């Protein structure tokens, strides 16, 4: 477990210094919110689109695509800079590498999620303060689920020549019904103040997070089998 924490700390430190992944995710998220703002400017002002529908769908489009952009580099960077073999030579279980990478992805992707919420609040003059806690909580649990399955898929696709294409092709069908749709519904319910419905959505996402964590942890040994 300690090795996973040190691996995550190394990833966060190198990311903080290079800002390669974060800057791409940040700009991607900013662009998405900006585009949605201009697309729905009339609908928002005349009230023909409910803010809860718009916020929940827009935020999860930003969260999921920013996560895919970010997670694509998780193992690709290690592979391209020839440090992946250094990790594989360390006397740790491969599952420790999975945990460490998932943890660093979670921190980075969740930080971008929070930024996306700030952008949304600014561009739509929307105040999340009344329901910020449940919305942030759903974002965290949904992101946890996303990064658990995303880290596994990123590792599977890293040795492929078309890894940039392979990652979304494998990942999107896996997360569409297990994370994104329940998370959009739970976020909408949280914004509308329907806590019980929101909790039901969170439970479903959490169940998938547990499944993804178990699958990742127990199968990761085979992903880098020589």
């Amino acid at each position, binding site marked *: 477990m300690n090795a996973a924490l*040190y691996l995550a700390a190394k990833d966060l*430190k*190198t990311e903080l210094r290079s800002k390669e992944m974060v800057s791409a995710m940040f700009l991607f998220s900013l662009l998405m919110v900006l585009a949605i703002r201009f697309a729905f400017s009339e609908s928002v002002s005349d009230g023909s689109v409910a803010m809860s529908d718009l916020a929940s769908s827009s935020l999860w489009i930003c969260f999921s695509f920013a996560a895919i952009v970010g997670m694509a580099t998780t193992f690709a960077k290690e592979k391209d800079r020839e*440090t992946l*073999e250094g990790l594989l*030579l360390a006397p740790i279980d491969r599952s420790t590498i999975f945990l460490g990478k998932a943890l660093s992805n979670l921190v980075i992707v969740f930080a971008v999620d929070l930024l996306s919420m700030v952008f949304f609040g600014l561009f739509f003059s929307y105040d999340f303060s009344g329901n910020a806690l449940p919305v942030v909580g759903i974002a965290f649990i949904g992101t946890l689920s996303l990064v658990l399955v995303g880290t596994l898929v990123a590792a599977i696709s890293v040795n492929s020549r078309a890894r940039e294409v392979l990652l979304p092709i494998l990942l999107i069908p896996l997360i569409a019904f297990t994370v994104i749709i329940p998370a959009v519904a739970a976020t909408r319910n949280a914004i509308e103040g329907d806590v019980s419905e929101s909790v039901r959505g969170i439970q479903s996402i959490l169940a998938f997070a547990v499944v993804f964590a178990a699958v990742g942890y127990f199968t990761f040994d085979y992903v880098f089998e020589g």
Partner: protein
Amino acid sequence: MIEARGIVRGFGRRKVLNSLDMRVGDGEIVALMGPNGSGKTTLLRVLSTLLEPSAGEVLLNGSAVRDDPAAARRAIGMVGHATYTYDDLTALENLRFYWHMHGLPGKEFGMVGPAILRRVGLGHRINDRASVFSRGMRQRLAVARAILHSPRVLLLDEPFSSLDQKGVDILSQILLEEKAKGCSVLVVTHDIQRISALAGRADILTGGRISQSYASESIRKGELERAYRASAEGVIM
């Protein structure tokens, strides 16, 4: 001691290693030579657990590496073609990261880390990021990373490449010191002059197995050089 028994490994239909047997004893430096594409790097990758053999087994001090690969990795230090170092970390941070990956006690690193960097001649650059290092300096850092955890087996793939004369001397000294401590050292190299001063034995790899083996006396007499040149031209003496 590290031993390969009947190792078979191929890529697609092509067998690179074909029932290969070899052994590097404790306190022994063995040079592994052979023409390009003969499988030297593949053998090192199999010995280091990076590649699984299709058949045969690797033994470390008599125990099969397959049974406990993590324990084997704890005992092996490797310098590969790549340096396995992170550009965005300083020399000391790189070593600290691998120190923790080996599960070594954090408190001891404060003494050991800088000392190892001084040993490879990077004592004055410990807080510089690896991104500003020349290829030779990165190679020195790779050597420091490989010996950091006091391995019982050292596997080195053309370690003298990109080192300047001082770097070559430092690495030669390190290999002799590790040998004196009982470490088994296997060096893939094409540098016959350099290795003749270090190795107790030189093995030539051709046709997927060790075709010839030369003791230090034969190396000095020039027999190895003649055999090596012949192997590169496809002639087995």
